[in-house]
């Protein structure tokens, strides 16, 4: 399966968050490893895009776009809120 990194989803993240998120920091909810979104492992394609922690492989978040609507489930990543 094609394996990319968070740079590849920068455009979709701007659609959702309204700004560049590749430099946003967060911590893996499973192992606690801190990283920037650009550093996470991204598996595109399939019905949705799966984003995993590079250290432990835990699913950080999943997003699915259907008919112009993007649903994002940030279940495994504590995203630092930046103003």
């Amino acid at each position, binding site marked *: 399966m094609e394996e*990319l990194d968070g740079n590849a989803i920068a455009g979709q993240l701007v659609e959702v968050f309204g700004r560049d998120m590749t430099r946003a920091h967060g911590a893996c909810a499973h192992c606690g490893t801190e990283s920037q979104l650009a550093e996470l492992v991204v598996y595109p394609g399939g019905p949705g895009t799966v984003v995993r922690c590079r250290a432990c492989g835990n699913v950080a978040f999943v997003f699915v776009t259907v008919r112009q609507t993007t649903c994002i489930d940030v279940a495994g990543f504590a995203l630092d809120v930046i103003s």
Partner: protein
Amino acid sequence: MARAALSGRLSWQFGRVVELVEETARTKSLVLETPARQGHRAGQHVDVRLTAPDGYQAQRSYSIASGPEDEHLVLTVERLVDGEVSPYLVDELRPGDELELRGPIGGYFVWEAALVGPVLMVAGGSGVVPFRAMLRHGAALGSDVPMRLLYSSRALSDVIYGEELMRLAEREPVEVHLTLTREWPDDWAGPRGRIDGPLLDQVAWPPPQRPLIYICGPSGFVEAASQTLVQRGHDPSRIRTERFGPSGQ
């Protein structure tokens, strides 16, 4: 434009193909004219979207090959064997055609002259594309930041921007090192084989000089290069990586 700037949202826009430049047998540069030309930062990419007559859409990201100061936006695209988007861009697109684009995008894999430290750029195959933007940006500014490019390519015939890179390397602070991994001419005096520890030791500044390191290429290439650099004492926080799909280096 004001609306786009206010909301921070990206909008799709059409760029017109001004020129197509054959870089290698598999790679072409698309020179594009875009209506509202936003300045980009060296290293950023754009998303390209193709729409089939039945409405099916496919979207890919491509690094920007032009410098921020250049007149046109340039994307360099490598044709992937089983690609959905790249064969169209490399083989079918013609001057005058329009292409749907969104961007510029990304704030992580970006170089600006104000960043501290000498810059090491490590490229695998078409991973060299964002580094052309960075080198052109440095040249346009007359920047004295030392920049070294270590570029891994399968063969001389696969080298993208070969002549231009040699010209860019004529500037005092710039060095370009090319390693060939599969084929080389009989008289090839440069490095042969994949990028490894000894080659990185030879080309990179030692870790105490804290070079800012950018690595771009296929996933396996980026992983190997970044791990080797960290093992040799480079600070992971000084390493920025960008991976793309299957390709050779």
